[in-house]
């Protein structure tokens, strides 16, 4: 290792582990000791990453309170060194960390909230795509409908939530007091997506979730209708499916109809 790489290695270790082996490579000034000078960088490293996590996980911060959120961040930082050139990705594994770390894992809504907030981040800057319009849909001849497949917006995120975490986030975004954590009696399907500049999220009925999941995996319209037959009378299925499709188009979820 050359001289520069060796110094950088020691400097980085001093920032990450706060060891003092780098101290004797640094000059003190009349006012500031070598240790304190290195400490400025070690402190800034942690504060910058905490700020990044606070930006990514605003509702998690609200629910935990500043002190406990700060403790969570510091323990995450101690075990996770950033690697991506953009700090935006630093919080990517926070939900997994929360799932496996006490005392946070004792409150399962925390990991679910972290997952929800990370998926909002993913939707935020996912690839752009222009959605199709109701007119595009209306122009398709009826005999082509059974074979139609649908491409969904690249920002679309699908998740199952047991807790009221979406309400926690929307309260935080609107600067309201968040609701107390409350577990529903079953898992509820949710989607998060973005039109060009705005993010949206909403829950889905079991029918809609099944149909959306099938559509994402490339099933054609006839297959989507068959899926709905499990819960809806056969006579009403096509109309119901067309109604859901129309809703997705209004929401900006469909970017291409493939004939």
């Amino acid at each position, binding site marked *: 290792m050359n*001289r520069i790489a060796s110094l950088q290695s020691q400097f980085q270790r001093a*920032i990450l582990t706060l060891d003092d082996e780098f101290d004797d490579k*640094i000059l003190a000034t009349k006012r500031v000791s070598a240790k304190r000078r290195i400490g400025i*960088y070690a402190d800034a490293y942690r504060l910058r990453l905490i700020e990044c996590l606070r930006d990514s996980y605003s509702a998690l911060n609200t629910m935990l309170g500043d002190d406990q959120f700060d403790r969570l961040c510091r323990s995450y930082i101690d075990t996770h060194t*950033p690697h991506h*050139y953009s700090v935006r990705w630093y919080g990517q594994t926070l939900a997994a960390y929360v799932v496996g770390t006490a005392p946070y894992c004792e409150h399962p809504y925390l990991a679910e909230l972290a997952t929800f907030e990370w998926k909002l981040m993913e939707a935020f800057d996912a690839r752009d795509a222009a959605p199709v319009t109701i007119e595009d849909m209306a122009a398709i001849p009826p005999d082509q409908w059974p074979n139609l497949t649908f491409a969904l917006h690249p920002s679309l995120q699908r998740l199952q939530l047991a807790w009221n975490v979406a309400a926690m986030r929307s309260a935080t975004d609107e600067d309201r007091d968040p609701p107390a954590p409350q577990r529903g009696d079953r898992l509820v399907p949710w989607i998060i997506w*973005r039109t060009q500049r705005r993010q949206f999220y909403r829950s889905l009925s079991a029918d809609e979730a099944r149909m959306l999941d099938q559509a994402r995996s490339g099933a054609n319209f006839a297959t989507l209708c068959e899926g709905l037959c499990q819960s809806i009378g056969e006579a009403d299925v096509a109309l119901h499916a067309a109604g859901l499709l129309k809703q997705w188009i209004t929401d900006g979820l469909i970017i291409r109809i493939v004939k």
Partner: protein
Amino acid sequence: MQKSAVKRLPFLGFGLGLRTSHYQSVLAELPANIDWFEILSENYLVAGGKPLYYLDAIREHYPMIMHGVSMSIGGSDPLNWDYLTQLKQLADRVQPAWFSDHLCWTGLDGSNIHDLLPLPYTEEAIAHVANRVRQVQDFMERPMLIENVSSYLTYKDSAMTEWEFLTGIAEHGDCHILLDINNIYVSAFNHEFDPHEYLHYIPVDRVGQFHLAGHTNCGDYIIDSHDHPVIDPVWELYAEAVRRFGPVSIMIERDDHIPPLNELLPELDRARSIAQPILKEVAA
């Protein structure tokens, strides 16, 4: 040291750092006293969404320069060609007159500390960094500027001044310099050197851009926090820089406690009102 002839970069006027919280006011008001914007490149190395939407919309009205924080031009890891490829794609989109990053390293062994870590001021480091600057500049096919950083420590290994080091890299790497006036002030305080000596050493034609910003005085040291207005001694140093370097594109950075756009504009007007009489005087 062998000095090559340098072509001066164009004078773009008086700019601001483009910040998310100002997107809508910029588009609604299209302020005429902002001549150009500097963007933080990493914020736009994304697939789509709001950042790229506003980037394109604002670029239609203003010239832009790309300023990065993650190149690690002084790092010991190999250059990150994936990052550089994305940076070049962004440059194709933005068409900046130049791009810049900091004279620093940001991590080792694949880590990114997300800080602008100083280098030891040695001949070995000049050769190392200048070689990387040449590679990056050739790849990007645009002029590259390296910026002096604020620093808080001094390596015992350092064998020259910061201004000799910066100049050495600009000469050997054949690149331009983004001279951050506030960083000179901050580092002069932290390392007890004379900021005027710094200014008067830097070769005039190498300087392509100035930065101005505020900082936080912690008593025993100063942190380059970009969260306050520019202070008077930095304005004075700026006036001296304008007198020495002539018409150099200047912009003001604010990264924290960002006020509404209309509160930043008087600061930009102040930069203009300081520079214009000096430039007129120098031209005469």
